């Protein structure tokens, strides 16, 4: 294979894959496997090699080429289901998830393996379909993981996704999202909570191809120790996609001088009559708030954790499934306790 993406490539400026893993290790990685738990009306099949034609980034294309087999999940018209994908064997993996017209799916992804993983997932949401997607990546300073999603959203459909990343040697989540039909909606949110040695990069590419579609993004990053958090988001509004509504917010909290956060929201508008806003800010914990809490008896580490939790609150609140949200909170709180210990 050709050279791995590295910091000379604009899209990979903050995430140097070549520095994290040998090209040989990528080329020889096995095919990944998931342990799949289904409920409701979801069909699971082997994914033939010819299927899956999503728009992926560099590594997603590599994954699609290496993974000879994959999984294909299908929710029929008007049906409902939930899927839990647990990555159980690292390597190159590929999946296609199709949610037909008026159907709804809650998709949960977790991983229990380290090493090198490179996953390409294609998601197709049919007209008026509802998708709630939550991915959690545990802290693992040894592993290199790349996930590349290609998502197409039809008219009136909603794709709502949350990405909680606790840091790896290198972690890259790439989202290529196309709002293809009138009134399509995408709501992305995520938290990265990084301790010493952690890295997490979320890169989103959202294209409004149809009119009156809505996209929101809310990402919060906390970086402690020597770690690096990255958010790059680009929203493109195509010509004629009038009435597009897009909001993009990314905020970072730096806990020390060895931590780094890079936020890069971008907007490209080719249509008239659109509502677009983006913002990014990096800061420190507010000393006034810290003193207020301590003066009321809350010890410093606990006060710091409380303020960090507060910082993440609105992003985690985007998870609408109550049980999953509670579980994500418990993992976030454990990560914050480590950061403040």
């Amino acid at each position, binding site marked *: 294979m050709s050279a791995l993406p590295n910091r000379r490539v604009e899209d990979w400026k903050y995430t140097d894959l070549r520095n994290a893993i040998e090209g040989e290790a990528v080329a020889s990685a096995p095919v990944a496997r998931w342990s799949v738990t289904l409920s409701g009306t979801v069909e699971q099949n082997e994914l033939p090699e010819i299927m899956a034609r999503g728009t992926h980034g560099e590594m997603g294309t590599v994954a699609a080429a290496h993974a000879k087999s994959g999984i294909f999940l299908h929710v029929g018209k008007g049906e409902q289901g939930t899927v839990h994908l647990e990555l159980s064997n690292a390597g190159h993996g590929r999946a296609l998830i199709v949610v037909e017209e008026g159907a709804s799916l809650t998709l949960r992804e977790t991983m229990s393996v380290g090493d090198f993983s490179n996953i390409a997932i294609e998601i197709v949401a049919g007209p008026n379909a509802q998708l709630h997607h939550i991915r959690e990546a545990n802290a693992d300073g040894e592993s290199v993981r790349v996930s590349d999603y290609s998502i197409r959203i039809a008219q009136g459909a909603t794709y709502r996704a949350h990405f909680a990343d606790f840091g790896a040697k290198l972690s890259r989540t790439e989202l290529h999202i196309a709002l293809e039909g009138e009134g399509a909606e995408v709501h992305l949110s995520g938290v990265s909570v990084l301790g010493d040695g952690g890295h997490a990069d979320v890169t989103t590419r959202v294209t409004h191809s149809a009119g009156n579609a809505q996209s929101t993004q809310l990402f919060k990053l906390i970086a402690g120790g020597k770690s690096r958090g990255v958010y790059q988001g680009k929203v493109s509004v195509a010509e004629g996609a009038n009435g597009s509504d897009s909001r993009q917010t990314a905020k970072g909290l730096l806990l020390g001088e060895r931590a780094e956060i890079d936020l890069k929201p971008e907007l490209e508008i080719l249509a008239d009559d659109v509502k677009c806003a983006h913002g990014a800010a990096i800061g420190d914990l507010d000393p006034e708030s810290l*003193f*207020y809490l301590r*003066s*009321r*008896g809350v010890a410093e580490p*606990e006060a710091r954790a409380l*303020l960090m939790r*507060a910082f*993440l609150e609105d992003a985690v609140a985007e998870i609408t499934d109550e049980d999953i949200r509670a579980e994500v909170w418990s993992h976030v709180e454990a990560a914050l306790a480590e950061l403040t210990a």
Partner: protein
Amino acid sequence: MLEIEGLHVAVSGKEILKGLSLSIAAGEVHAIMGPNGSGKSTLSYVLAGREGYEIISGSIRYRGEDLAAMAPEERAAKGVFLAMQYPVEIPGVTTMNFLKTALNAQRRARGEKDIDALGVLRLVREKAKALHISEEMLKRALNVGFSGGEKKRLEILQMALFEPALAILDETDSGLDIDALKVVADGVNGLRSSERAMLVITHYQRLLNHIVPDRVHVLYGGRIIKEGGKELAHELEAKGYAEIIREAA
């Protein structure tokens, strides 16, 4: 309860308190009055342990212990409470959750058992009613979008909940209309007890019509320049600070 001796305090290298001495016994309510820039807020912050307030010399003893050596949270657990002039807004933390966290943090530091969520809720509700604090307010993020009066009432609610031995009220009357002032003053008066000392810091005499002090101290230029009974507050109101300062010079 509180013994301050010859206290000199600097902020960013500038000396603000210049030999302040003050003694408050349990059961007493003392007022500190002073014009802007006299050192009132510096005194309240140094008692609560805020960073950036450097004690150059002098001592602060609280129940015989060196208060200055304690972290802010330790002071709180030992019964020192400062009702702030400008309570901080903290988005993302609900008021109720904050109250529970703070109350139990103090209890834990004293080796007492936590009170469960329902227990705290019951306790807060009971005390909130008298202060006209609604359930809805308790569900909102801490101080976020609260009016000046709501913030001050919430400070007094905390005082009622934590039951401190020494309460310092910093400009609790600022930004309050007369009705809100009365609610806050009633709340404070309800907490007067023979075991509790209070230090009421204010610019105006108006609050002291409602919270009647046992002693009044006039703070000017970082020192107490005059002391007296509750009538001193009226004298100040009648004469103005300039006259009192001239007399004391």
